[in-house]
């Protein structure tokens, strides 16, 4: 009986085929990114000026070919995927923490405090964030850490709004009223009772903010402000591939396709999860 219930619940949570396929793709990509490089004897930074611009081939483990400096594209792509995923996840985590904390507090507090906090959000919404991020990167020399913070700072507002909305409705539920009656302090109520119930919303939003974070990082790499050599990210690889488009199209096509597939998977995943968990959440 329990097994069946769990199975049904899982089925409901994981939604339809689109969700499962997307999740599957992402898992495969992640595993490939983590383990792939061990399949090849090459590393992501060694140059070999004699082996430049080699198209993808099976011999010598040059699965994706080499770039303009003779570096192996397969390992670089896997390495870049790792970095991109890391940036995206950490940045999303940053916006998650900020957004949830802020939104939950605002929603729970209600009244004037809520209005004031949301006013600030409205004000921040008007900031031309991308310009400030560019300025930030320029001002502080493209610190690796700063990229996470910068990207995370762009997205937290949406999260805060959604969380606040959810909190407002959760606030009126019986278990919250009960906790209040018992005398549980508000902080505990917010973080012990309300936040866990936000998980559904949050998970959905994370899968939607991750592609945004990836795109922002790619954009910064395009401007030369993102991850620095010899580290690389998918965005940086695509950017590099653009300039070699004519001579070595695989340098662009492979990372670009991988990037597009990842983004699509995240989008499908997010959509599917949202449909499954809360069909009322038709924000986007």
């Amino acid at each position: 009986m329990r097994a069946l219930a769990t199975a049904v619940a899982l089925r409901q949570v994981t939604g339809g085929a689109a969700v499962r396929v997307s999740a599957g793709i992402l898992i495969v990509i992640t595993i490939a990114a983590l383990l792939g490089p061990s399949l090849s004897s090459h590393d992501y930074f060694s140059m070999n000026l004699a082996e430049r611009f080699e198209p993808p081939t099976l011999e010598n483990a040059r699965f994706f070919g080499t770039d303009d400096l003779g570096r192996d594209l397969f390992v670089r792509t896997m390495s870049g995927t790792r970095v991109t995923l890391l940036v995206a996840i950490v940045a999303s985590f940053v916006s998650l923490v900020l957004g949830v904390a802020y939104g939950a507090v605002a929603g729970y507090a209600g009244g004037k405090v809520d209005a004031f906090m949301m006013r600030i959000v409205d004000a921040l919404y008007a900031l031309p964030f991308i310009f400030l991020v560019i300025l930030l990167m320029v001002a502080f020399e493209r610190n690796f850490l700063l990229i996470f913070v910068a990207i995370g700072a762009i997205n937290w507002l949406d999260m805060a709004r959604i969380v606040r909305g959810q909190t407002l409705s959760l606030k009126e539920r019986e278990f919250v009223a009960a906790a209040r009656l018992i005398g549980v302090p508000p902080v505990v109520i917010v973080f012990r009772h309300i936040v866990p119930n936000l998980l559904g919303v949050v998970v959905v939003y994370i899968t939607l903010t991750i592609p945004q974070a990836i795109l922002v990082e790619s954009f910064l790499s395009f401007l030369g402000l993102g991850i620095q050599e010899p580290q690389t990210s998918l965005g940086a690889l695509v950017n590099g591939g653009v300039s070699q488009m004519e001579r070595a199209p695989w340098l662009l096509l492979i990372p670009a396709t991988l990037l597009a597939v990842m983004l699509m998977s995240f989008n499908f995943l997010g959509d599917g999860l949202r449909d499954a968990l809360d069909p009322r959440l038709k924000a986007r």
Partner: protein
Amino acid sequence: MLRFALLRILSAIPTLCLVVVLAFLMVHAAPGGPFDDERVLPPENARNLAAAYHLDESLPRQFARYVSGLLKGDLGPSYHYRDHSVSELIGAAFPLSLQLGLLSMAVALAVGVSAGVLAALRRNTISDRLITGMAMTGISVPVFVVAPLFVLVFAVELRWLPASWSGDASGRRFLLPVVALALPQIAYITRLTRASMVETLSSDYVRTARAQGLSLFSIVRFHALKPALLPVVSYLGPAIAAVLTGAVVVEIVFGVPGLGQLFVRSALNRDYTLVLGVVVFYAALIVILNLTVDLLYGFLDPRTRNP
């Protein structure tokens, strides 16, 4: 309505102040200055330049000087382009960005809404899956991949369209940049419209209309479309922000002398006044646009009119 608008404008003022202060601090925090170069200036020249542009004053004084100019509507001289003022440079660049942005949004709305409605009407058929699939691709492929591809295919190989901006004075030079910029928005709007339309079509009053015998076509046009478009309207705000971002890439790739491109260059040049000018200008622009969107939303949906 007027009170609503005025209130919104007033509450935007602290935002703008925050923007000015933040931008000012960040620009001055960045290492280097507007006149730094590999050919290092001899000390006397550096001193003369600093004096001419008030860079030898303390930061608070420079800030005060800037703000008092700002209040009079004077954005100051550009530090890098020494023949021109910031207002002139923004004035020359902005109309182009505006044209690009408006055209892209128009295209995105026209194509996106139509595609979304079509997909919703033919839900779960091949057309729907095709449209949804293309929309998904549109969101996933970044602008800076699409734009250079366009240039390569259409301008260089096929020679159908101009490769860049000032080579050709006709309207054709708009085509590639506008489409490149519009693509991601088309994708988003298609998805939004489709989802919203699907929901509207299954709502009670539409089912009633259907039962009354009205054709699907007229239902869509006169009953379903307006409410279905509400989420699209509320998306316009973030859409504008996205277009501004995408515009920077498109401007760089196509050589369009717009505001996005100007900003990036001025940041790298440490042209303090120009950077500040563009940031303040954009912030004000976003505020006005968001206000317009909200008013539009209120106009379309009477339920939200009470502030």
